[in-house]
């Protein structure tokens, strides 16, 4: 067994299942199982990544949060483009993101959002661009992918799950599925550079409540009248 491992470590042995050799430096995602499956070991620099999810509030931001914290702490800039809601500063701060390095761009129209995304990528000042582009077509994403290539960081396009059946120029496509009961979000790698993966990865996400909170789940809903007194008791 040891001789096999040492043999596999030699450069002359090529393994079909291994992700393709890393080109540019990647930004580690902060989740070891995910890093192990992504070519280069993280979010690909100069690449367009698609994150597809059917629901919001299932941990879609958490999978990118460790990378954002590391980038902003290192003095790099991160942009939020056309986010559907307000990125909430206190929660971001608590997750270790340096707020001073964030730029939020609100672009109500679809064309404006695409234009702004391309401008941001071409300016090459952001090490991560998080963009919400629900209705982008293949040629539009292709433009963004080309614009991202010369940049220092990665671009993450959040899109609805329906887009999974469309062709995409992204170098990496992830589909998120809620894993509510387990406290893990399931990440399926739909497309990556290298050999395909079929098994979904389960990424642990931070849940904003402890173990004891499950009691509430099973308990009947608190009545409107009585909850004031209970609230005080819980807070104490």
């Amino acid at each position, binding site marked *: 067994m040891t001789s096999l491992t040492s043999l596999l470590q030699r450069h002359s042995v090529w393994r079909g299942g291994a992700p393709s050799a890393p080109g540019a430096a990647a930004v580690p995602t902060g989740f070891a199982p995910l890093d192990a499956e992504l070519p280069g070991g993280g979010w690909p620099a100069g690449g367009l990544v698609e994150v597809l999810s*059917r*629901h*919001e*509030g*299932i*941990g*879609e*931001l*958490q999978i990118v*949060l460790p990378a954002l914290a590391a980038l902003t702490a290192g*003095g*790099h*800039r991160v942009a939020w483009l056309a*986010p559907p*809601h*307000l*990125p*909430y*500063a*206190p*929660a*971001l*701060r*608590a*997750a270790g993101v*340096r*707020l*001073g*390095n964030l*730029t*939020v*761009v*609100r*672009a109500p129209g679809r064309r*404006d959002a695409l*234009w*702004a995304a391309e*401008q*941001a990528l071409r*300016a*090459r*000042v952001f090490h991560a661009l998080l963009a919400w582009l629900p209705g982008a077509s293949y040629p539009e994403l292709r433009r963004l992918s080309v614009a991202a290539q010369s940049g220092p960081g990665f671009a993450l396009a959040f899109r609805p799950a329906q887009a999974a059946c469309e062709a995409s120029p992204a170098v990496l496509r992830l589909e998120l599925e*809620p894993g*509510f009961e387990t406290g893990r979000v399931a990440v399926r790698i739909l497309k990556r550079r290298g050999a395909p993966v079929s098994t979904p990865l389960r990424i642990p996400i931070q*849940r*904003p*409540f*402890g173990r004891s*909170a499950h009691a*509430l*789940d099973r308990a009947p*809903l608190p009545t*409107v009248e009585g*909850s*004031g007194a*209970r*609230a*005080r008791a*819980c*807070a104490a």
Partner: protein
Amino acid sequence: MKDQALARGHAPPDPGREALEAVAAWACRFTPRVSLEPPQGIALEVEGSLRFFSGADSLRKRIAEGLETLGFTAGIASGPTAQAALWRASGGGGALEDLPVSVTGLDEEALALLAGLGLRTLGDVLRLPREGVARRWGKDLVDALDRALGRAPEPREFFAPPARFAQKLELPAQVSEAPSALFALRRLLAQLEGFLAARQAGVRAFRVLLVHPDCAPTEVSVELASAARGEAHFTRLLFERFQRLELPQPIEAVLLAAESLEPLAEKTAGLFGGPGEGGEEWLRLVERLQARLGGEAVHGLGLHEDHRPECAFCRVDFRTKDSRGADTREQGGSPGPRPLWLLEAPRPLCEGEFALLAGPERIESGWWDGKEARRDYFIARTGESLAWIYRERQGGWFVHGFFA
């Protein structure tokens, strides 16, 4: 050393006055004191520029590289006086005394006479009595020797670059594809950069004329968002334009013209690399985005001391505030779990649409400014999402955020 000069003597064929002026205009980037030394020399007074270009060797290297881009080959030499530098450049370097007498530019007859007397180097001539040298070869030679040695003043007329840039370059062979002409254009763009650097200026627009043998030239005008002068940047812009260009005929010459200069000062590099990575570029981008999307559309995020969730953050306006200043204060202990998404307008929720998981966290604040909040916050599951919901004390449930 009073003033050091770098000079270059161009190898034959004679480059001509126009080419000399073009090189002089380019050389103005290194020093404002450039003089033409016809037929084929240019003298630069660089004593004051050495420190900026980190030494004579580094400056010499830059000049050599720049001239190569412009398409010239040159001998470059330095000396304490312009005359000495010029002679050394045309004599291939070395000590002034060891230079051959031919560098003085005397006519054939005089050179033959010197050779007949066995005088081969300037050192040999210098050892002769002055009066004798002046009588045999004219006072000009003695004066030139005096100037080279710094014994006589060396008045020179400095080159004044023209106020607008227009240069034409004949291509060595006709080309049928516009991108092929780019290589030649790079020389002109490099000249333009030197020309602009000498004035501390940039341009917002420039024109390229592609001259065809038998029809009107194709004009390509490039407009920029802000004043710039970088050769590499201009080349990239032209490359994009040329890709889509249809030519009626092959190109035989290119012409580059730029007017309406704008001041563009060099930035002083900061001790720690300036106000942050790509600070200038980033600011330009923000300006561009705000120009199209509106001033409110681009903002930063900061914290604000308030218990009400919708008031616990602030939007940082980059136009008025330094973006990096917003984050200096540490948050004093998180009051409870906070969602990553906050809904701008809380969404009403019917009972039965959610299941509570944790809570409550009571928030009562803001009675003083008319936006009083009296709410109990819960973490709840709505469908597949993990939401932050609250119940108004007057009744009614609302979604206020998502734990995304």
